[in-house]
């Protein structure tokens, strides 16, 4: 068995802390993982509210049985798959899958020096939303979570070669979409104009 990566080890430490100290220690795990879990859930549900519900459900499960997380071989991929499962449950509960075709539901945050890059960020997120979920989740796990295809395959319960081919197709589409966007970004484009700083900037 390979040693867990440093982030997985930190997740395990948090789970151990919850097991020892109780629910109050869940805040540590939340601070460590919430943003990363949310972006995966948003990718699947295409809705920030549903994604937050999925993250909440997964973390509450962890608080209820922290040993399950701390005893597994790879706590971080395990937690990601928990959030993915909760997201899929929420999707199934939805009467109709009406995916948003804009980013109006998202709560975004960027630093002052990132203002000029906001258009790029929005383009990336919009392009991700144009992908089928099974492709976009592979992209999220590969690029943002730095998982190997073998680990992605475990999280998604698919073959590693399937994960790799999905990733390849997804990146090709994204490259195409982002290049198009980069060349013709205007208010009429699918991405649309960015929201004002007052609407979007919640942070530093």
């Amino acid at each position, binding site marked *: 068995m390979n040693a867990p990566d440093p982030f997985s080890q930190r997740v395990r430490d948090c789970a151990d802390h919850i097991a020892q100290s109780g629910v109050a220690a869940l805040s540590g795990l939340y601070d460590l993982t919430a943003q990363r879990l949310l972006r995966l859930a948003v990718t699947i549900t295409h809705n920030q509210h549903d994604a937050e519900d999925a993250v909440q459900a997964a973390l509450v499960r962890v608080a209820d049985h922290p040993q399950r997380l701390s005893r597994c071989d790879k706590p971080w991929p395990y937690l990601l798959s928990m959030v993915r499962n909760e997201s899929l449950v929420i999707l199934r509960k939805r009467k109709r899958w009406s995916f948003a075709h804009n980013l109006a539901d998202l*709560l975004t945050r960027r630093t002052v020096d990132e203002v000029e890059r906001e258009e790029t960020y*929005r383009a990336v997120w919009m392009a991700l939303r144009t992908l089928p979920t099974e492709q976009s989740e592979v992209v999220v796990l590969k690029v943002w979570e730095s998982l190997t295809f073998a680990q992605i395959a475990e999280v998604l319960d698919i073959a590693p070669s399937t994960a790799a081919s999905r*990733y390849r197709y997804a990146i090709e589409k994204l490259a195409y979409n982002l290049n198009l966007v980069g060349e013709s970004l205007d208010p009429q484009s699918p991405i649309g104009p960015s929201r004002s700083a007052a609407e979007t900037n919640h942070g530093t």
Partner: protein
Amino acid sequence: MAREHRCGKDGLPGCDDGPHTDDRFAETEALIMSAGRYVWPSDDLRPRVLEAARERVGRRHTRYRLAVMMVAAALGVMTGVSVSNHLQASADSAAMPRGERLDELVEAHAAASGQTHDWALADIVDQWRRELAERLPEGTVTPHRRQSDKTIR
């Protein structure tokens, strides 16, 4: 990481579309990577998660306590019923027959032995006392009591 999938590492086939495709992929991955921290949880999610977790764990503890209490109550009732039945049986067997039951015994003993009803009653009482004495553990009967028994006989 960015080039891992293209070079056939990770145990997977690579892409043979040439360096131009590699560059395009790397650019795209870099773009995606840069947008990773653009979306954030809302400010109320953290307290919501902590509150929901507290409620859930509290409910679980309550259910656990309730289950323990129910098991303890069930065990208590079962033990009580068992002890009660045992005591009742013991009391029934140790009690002197009374009323119609005693009349029936006297009648039967008198008919069997040819004695009068008075002597039959005396025999039954004597027999009952012997049975009680036999149930007592050895050494419980005092010498004085044994002496008095002999005297009576």
